[in-house]
């Protein structure tokens, strides 16, 4: 792992393949995105699956979104909720609600596609996304430091395990100052000391 990117060579599973196929469409359309939440832990080997993959996409105008919608449909994906473009843009994305894309006839797993919801935080993530080179494919993920703190903020057992997995795996390469700042901002220093850092 370097400051700018992480290189990972692995056998691809169905979730990885779904992500690679989907972000290829975004990349081709020059849409800025970042993968967040559970998939980040799964990408790096967490031994669990997931029904959805969360992806934050930089807000784009309706006309541009319609081009992407067309492209996504051509590539054998469908939007599960909602099933039409107008509603997807006006009634969901612009009202800070996610929409879900999956491969046609396979609703699970699916891509939870959203414009920034927590505006400041999500825009920061988009700006500071970390590049992952997965085999020959390029992906953008949320910084690991924020993922750890945010997973602790979510707080379920699964989330704490996700946070711990990332922390134990990347411990030596993390920006500890950045991690500490996010823990303070999210008020999760206590949970971090309790579940992740046995030295505290």
């Amino acid at each position, binding site marked *: 792992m370097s400051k700018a990117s992480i290189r*990972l*060579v*692995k*056998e*691809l*599973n*169905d*979730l990885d393949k779904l992500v690679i196929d989907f972000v290829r469409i975004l990349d081709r359309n020059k849409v800025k995105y970042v993968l967040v939440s559970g998939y980040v832990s*799964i990408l790096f*080997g*967490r*031994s*669990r*699956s997931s*029904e959805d993959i969360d992806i934050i996409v930089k807000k784009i105008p309706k006309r541009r979104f319609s081009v992407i919608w067309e492209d996504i449909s051509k590539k054998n994906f469908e939007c599960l909720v909602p099933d039409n473009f107008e509603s997807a843009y006006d009634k969901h994305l612009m009202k800070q609600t996610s929409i879900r894309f999956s491969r046609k*006839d*396979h*609703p*699970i*797993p699916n891509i939870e596609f959203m414009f920034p919801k927590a505006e400041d935080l999500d825009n920061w993530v988009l700006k500071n996304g970390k590049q992952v080179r997965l085999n020959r494919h390029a992906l953008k993920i949320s910084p690991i430091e924020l993922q750890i703190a945010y997973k602790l903020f979510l707080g379920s*057992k699964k989330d*704490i*395990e996700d946070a*711990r*997995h990332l922390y*134990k*795996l990347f411990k030596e390469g993390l920006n500890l100052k950045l991690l500490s700042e996010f823990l303070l901002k999210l008020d999760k220093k206590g949970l971090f000391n309790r*579940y992740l850092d046995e030295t505290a």
Partner: protein
Amino acid sequence: MRLPEINLQELEKIKKENFRERLEFQDRYVKWMKMANNVEWSAAQKAIINRKSEGSASRTHSNRSAAHARYVKRSKN
């Protein structure tokens, strides 16, 4: 039928202990990942994840088949 006594404190303690044990296992798993080569751990992970998605795909297929059968039956009636 006599229902068992339930000691919530005892159950909470068991729940906590299970979680602690799960975290310990996770540490061992990460240690193993760091020592194993990527092909080894990612093949194991692939088996877990693909098994789940294959299950959901076949469920979708059988749900559709059942829905189709219901539709055909209704049409015939």
